[in-house]
């Protein structure tokens, strides 16, 4: 109990520190500024896009890791969760080496399609996806592994097609881990800093997400930085608590 209390205090004290230092009187002014609104809008756009891409690519990947056995699976699995332990700045450099102007794929993308990813919003989304998707993959994979596969077998023996089994049996059964994975992925994407600033740079309205705006505000205007951080906190708490009540509370 005491240890749990210490754990709670450890998380709450820094938040209390932030709240105590918040300049409430000027807070509203800071919030209404166009730069803050642009950063907030961009942060929401990028984090939800990253989660969507994460779901589209990550769920099949999780299913592959959970259900198929093939040589090199564990190595491949380790590689896909590597961004979780890689310092995000290094991740950003790695993304530049892959998708940058002189990168492995980036040069081809630029000359063939005229697509430039660094310094664009698409680049910010890619950086966030790179760092956040592993959280979704491992959560969904764990859900698929702990699921009772006899339900799928039963559905199949009753004549359900593979698609029907997937949509009507498998995905509904792993819904809690699907949602938990998506939320974790979204939260990680929202707070992403290092890979984004390294790969996509920092430009207001284009690639300057909230964490980047907070970091730069710290240089000149610490009060503004604290207000921005609180906004980020409120937005993420609202989404996390709202999701919990709507989808996770029942389970």
């Amino acid at each position, binding site marked *: 109990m005491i240890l749990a209390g210490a754990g709670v205090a450890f998380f709450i004290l820094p938040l209390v520190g932030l709240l105590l230092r918040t300049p409430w009187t000027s807070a509203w002014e800071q919030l209404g500024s166009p730069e803050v609104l642009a950063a907030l809008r961009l942060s929401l756009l990028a984090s939800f896009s990253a989660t969507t891409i994460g779901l589209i690519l990550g769920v099949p990947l999780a299913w592959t890791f959970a259900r198929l056995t093939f040589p090199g699976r564990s190595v491949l699995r380790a590689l896909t969760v590597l961004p979780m332990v890689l310092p995000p700045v290094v991740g950003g*450099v790695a993304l*530049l*080496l892959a998708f*940058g*102007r*002189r990168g492995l794929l980036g040069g081809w993308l630029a000359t063939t399609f005229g697509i430039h990813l*660094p*310094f664009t919003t698409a680049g910010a989304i890619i950086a966030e996806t790179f760092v956040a998707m592993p959280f979704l993959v491992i959560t969904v994979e764990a859900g698929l592994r702990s699921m009772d596969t006899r339900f799928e077998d039963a559905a199949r023996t009753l004549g359900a097609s593979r698609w029907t089994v997937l949509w009507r049996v498998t995905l509904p059964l792993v819904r809690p881990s699907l949602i938990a994975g998506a939320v974790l992925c979204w939260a990680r994407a929202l707070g992403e800093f290092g890979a984004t*600033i*390294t790969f*996509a*740079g*920092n*430009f*207001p309205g284009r*690639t*300057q997400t909230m964490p*980047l705006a907070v*970091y*730069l*505000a*710290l*240089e*000149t205007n*610490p009060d503004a930085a604290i207000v921005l951080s609180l906004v980020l906190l409120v937005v993420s708490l609202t989404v996390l608590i709202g999701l919990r009540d709507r989808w996770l509370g029942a389970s």
Partner: protein
Amino acid sequence: MAAALVLSAAAALCSACGTSAPASSPALSGTITVFAASSLNAAYTAIGKEFQKSHPGTMVTFTFGGSSMLVSQIQQGAIGDVVASADQPNMQKLIDAGLTAESPIVFARNDLEIVVGKGNPKHITSLADLARSGLVIVLCAPAVPCGRYAAQALQKAGLSVKPASQEADVKAVLSKVALGEADAGIVYVTDVKAAGNSVEGVTIPPALNVVAEYPIAILKDSQNRALARAFISYVLTDGRRILAQYGFTNP
């Protein structure tokens, strides 16, 4: 061994005789911590080694970081003896807070320079070239000193440059150019020098250049003012030669 014993005995004697010992006393001893701007990293590390060689029995440890980050650390109670900032406004914050012991002295200057890729593939020869269309330019964010100075230089030249990104610090500008993601940026002379062969510098004429001034001061809470003072006078004398090697100019 015997010499070390004699020295430490002398040090013990001196600490008994109080802090009235002059800075040139041969019995300097102990450790000081120097907070120094990131751009001083290489030069100060070299100065620290030389200083310790000429004052055996002393130890100088460094904390390098962005000037504004160092200032907020000191304001939050970080313990140290000397601070060297990359700009006057940050030093002024410490003076205003009553955290410095003596008025700061400018010990070095750093000019701005255009940084371009190896071999200058885009043939950039002046500030005016940065306004050419089709170039990817990165600058420091206006919130950090290098961004402020770059904006001043461009204003002097009557140019409007649209950067692809406003980077959080000067090293980020440098790495974007070194990796080939950006065609050019504006950084300090010392940064181009430190980057070695990966980039090239294009000189900005004095009429358009903006010079960064580096002040140094003793902190009020220093526990070893004699050694702190000795270090500062070393920076101002023998240190100048070392600073020049790294691209700084004398004030």
